[in-house]
């Protein structure tokens, strides 16, 4: 995967469960994804499994959940916001994310894999999220959530995909650099 990522023009990748290091000139960030539905569960996983990771990503939930998660130390990225209920990410959460430096993930996998109205809904959701991102300036990342080299996309392709919901090429390249900047910013147990 690292070899293919290097050939595609990427300089680093975040891999869930992999140890951090370097392979084939590609920086590998150790990432942990937390799927817990409750804040209590997120805190428990943050204390145990996610402790040694460079980057901690948490699946978004409703608004109360998101606001609580954004205040937790160690959380780097809030992901899957497009799957959260409508109104889960408001101007309050946006301001909180900007204050805490927590990034929002734009998942590009549904844009590649889905067809028809499910994809249209994801594009609409990403468009809606891009507006507060530009207004409040919180960091954002773009992810392919690749499970094999067939799901990987090059920066040029990622820029073409993000253009579908109005993100510019500069913004995409900046978003690609965010995980590297967030890595190692683990701030201890909440």
């Amino acid at each position, binding site marked *: 995967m690292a070899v*293919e990522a290097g*050939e595609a023009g990427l300089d680093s990748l975040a891999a869930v469960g992999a140890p951090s290091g370097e*392979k084939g000139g590609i920086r590998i960030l150790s990432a942990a994804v937390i799927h817990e539905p409750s804040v209590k569960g997120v805190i428990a996983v943050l204390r145990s499994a996610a402790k040694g990771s460079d980057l901690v990503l948490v699946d978004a939930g409703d608004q109360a959940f998101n606001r609580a998660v954004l205040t937790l130390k160690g959380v780097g990225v809030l992901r899957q916001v497009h799957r959260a209920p409508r109104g889960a990410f408001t101007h309050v959460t946006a301001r909180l994310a900007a204050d805490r430096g927590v990034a929002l993930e734009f998942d590009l996998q549904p844009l590649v894999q889905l067809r028809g109205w499910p994809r249209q809904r994801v594009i609409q959701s990403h468009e809606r999220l891009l507006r507060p991102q530009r207004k409040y300036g919180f960091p954002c990342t773009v992810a392919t959530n690749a499970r094999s080299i*067939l*799901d990987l996309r090059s920066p040029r392709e990622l820029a073409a995909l993000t253009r579908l919901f109005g993100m510019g090429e500069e913004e995409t390249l900046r978003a690609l650099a965010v995980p590297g900047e967030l890595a190692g910013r683990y701030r201890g147990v909440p």
Partner: protein
Amino acid sequence: MPSHLPSQRDRRRYLLCRTVPEWAEPGPRVVFQAVCEAITTLWGDTGAAEIAPAVLDCGRGYVVVRCRRGTESRMSAALATVTRAGEDRLALRQVLTSGTLHAIRRRMREPTVAGTDTPVLLEGRAFLARRSAGQKVDLIAEEKKSPELLFFTEDDGVVR
């Protein structure tokens, strides 16, 4: 009757894409269908008509597609959503966009010499190890019902 003067012909752009996995050799018809499906689902029939896609060359690990000038960004987005050609999974990695086929052909790398398939036993399961460019080694599970592709490198210490 449309004019055939070179200055009045449609301006075209050519996109060079690398096929992933590299050893996949999909037929041009199958690739054209996959590209058309991706364009139509993303941009609709009118968008597809504007783009006017065509597959010019297919093989040796590369696909050359053509579109109208000014529509290459839309073509590029659609190509990024290609996930399979026919029954097989396939990704098209875009390498170059150019106005001439000459530049596209110059950029094509010589195909790597395909190594022989070596049978490998891993955790009690039989695989075929197929070496491709660089360090890449593809492991193909030899099972009847669910063919599975695993990607390893020599660094992983699995295939020697």
